[in-house]
């Protein structure tokens, strides 16, 4: 279980996160929503212990502040927003890097680590890509590779910063479906997203950041028309439809709903 107790972060005099507390169980897909600048990345950095904060971050009751980088890496994996790759490794090398936390300082990865990396590639069904250069596969495949790296890292919590940014619709679905499968296998995956529809469709739990304050709950409770309208500052309506016997919710922004745009 990932627990935050009373976490606050200040940048100078500005308080970016205000007394945030929540509990997240394993086996869940969690979406973090919030406007730009609401503190999503700051919240991730707090969980990863890369910035100063007050309060407590606990994994299975153990405070992360006291853990070394290596110990923490074995509990939490982090996947930054897909960025320009500074170094072009092959897909296999990229996944193998995930095993670093378990190596001794001067140790090179051996057969055990290689097997672990291959298992991770197989689990995501991308073993056929292993000799490709990372820069030459699609954005969706790159996300799957970084997820495989987190699996090779063997941590039960994976944090992803906007995994679907810059992906086309097909690749978005590929990544989101994969995340759902992995959470059903017992992982806790926390991702930030700008698309409330992705959250409505794929999240088991929602974290909503509004100017430093956090609310959490099931998608149906949190992502209501009223909350979404307030969050994005425009009329948003949530609809419910039944597709093949499954209740599905989605939201739309109202056309012409912004008076200052409509009056131009």
């Amino acid at each position, binding site marked *: 279980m990932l627990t935050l107790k009373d976490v606050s972060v200040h940048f100078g005099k500005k308080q970016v996160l205000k007394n945030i507390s929540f509990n997240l169980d394993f086996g869940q897909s969690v979406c973090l929503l919030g406007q730009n600048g609401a503190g999503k990345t700051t919240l991730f950095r707090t969980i*990863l212990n*890369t910035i100063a904060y007050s309060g407590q971050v606990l994994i299975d009751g153990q405070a992360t502040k006291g853990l*070394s*980088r*290596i110990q*923490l*890496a*074995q509990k*939490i*994996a*982090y996947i*930054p927003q897909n*960025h320009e790759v*500074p*170094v*072009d*490794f*092959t897909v296999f*090398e990229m996944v193998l*890097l*995930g095993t*670093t*936390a378990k*190596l001794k*300082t*001067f*140790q*090179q*990865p051996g057969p055990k680590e290689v097997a672990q990396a291959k298992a991770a590639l197989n689990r995501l069904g991308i073993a056929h890509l292993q*000799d490709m*250069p990372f*820069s*030459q596969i699609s954005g969706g495949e790159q996300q799957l590779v970084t997820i495989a790296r987190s699996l090779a*890292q063997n941590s039960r919590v994976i944090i992803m910063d906007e995994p679907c940014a810059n992906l086309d619709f097909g690749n978005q679905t590929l990544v989101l479906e994969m995340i759902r499968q992995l959470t059903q296998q017992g992982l806790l995956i926390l991702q930030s997203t700008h698309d409330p529809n992705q959250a409505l469709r794929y999240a088991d739990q929602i974290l909503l950041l509004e100017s430093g304050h956090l609310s959490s709950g099931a998608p149906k409770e949190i992502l209501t028309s009223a909350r979404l309208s307030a969050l994005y500052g425009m009329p948003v309506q949530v609809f419910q439809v039944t597709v093949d016997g499954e209740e599905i919710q989605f939201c739309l922004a109202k056309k012409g709903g912004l008076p200052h745009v409509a009056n131009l």
Partner: protein
Amino acid sequence: MGNTRKRRWVLLGLTLALGLGVLISGYLGKYPIAFHQYLEAISGFFKDTTTPATMRIQTILMNVRWPRIILAVLIGAGTSVAGATYQALFQNPMVSQDILGASQGAAFGAALGLFLQQSYEIVVSWSFVFGLLAVSVVLFLNRIIPGNRSRLNMILIGMIVSALFSSAVSFLKLIGDPTNTLPAITYWLMGSLSGIKMQDVYYAAPLLLGGMLPIMLLRWRLNVVALGNEEALSLGINVAVLRSILIVAATLVTATAVSVSGMIGWVGLVVPHFARLLLGNNYRYTMWATALGGGLFLLIVDDFARLLTTSEIPIGILTSVVGAPVFLILIAQNNRPTGGY
């Protein structure tokens, strides 16, 4: 996997080429030695009795050629490994000790030592201190200057710091004694391996090897650092500590090389690039190719430096002739959507 086999062949080939290069370079020289005499002299080292003619050749080998060959290989390997380390640490394939100002800082420290006619130890330590200072200044400026920390930014800042240290060296030359310190500093700055004695090997070899050792041991972790700060942290690397260790090690190698042989430019930039072309970006293997290739490259260039003309050409001039066009190709490649790095 096909990769594993290719790796094995490349590394084996480089090792053999280096061994052969060392053997042939010992044979080459201004003083003519017949090949059978050369072999006799080498096998003579393992025998108790030798003829006077063989002993004369052995003296030449021991005092003139081998010290130079050993240091050419070690400096070539060390400079290349240090260059690759800077490139990985700063996630920038276009930096090296010359561009980060480390070489110029080290050159200033060494020139100061020469100017004040200090002992070898002092020259090396000042060279090390100023080399480290130059890198720290570049990193500090890169951090505090607002704007995006692009690859270009660091190169420009490096140029500025290099220029400052170069003018400081010019100032030392200006006030240096034109009969001894000025020519000493000038010639040494051009970069040359001439006049190296066994004594120099005893001093420099442990420092060069000592600097390379931590880099070779930590080369897997260098891969992780090359991904960037946040990713490296979350993969379980203590980035700050690792970075400091590697910067100190790479700068120690740079400073030692500069104090022995002056500024031999471009090697640290070009050799790692070729190593990556051969074996890819995984430093686990590429660092070995860098070390072996760097040693081989400088050894060959040094053979040209001492044999091409009657009076010796400073090796720094030759490495520039090779390095400058390669750097141009590197820039052209880096502008393509999928760069080599």
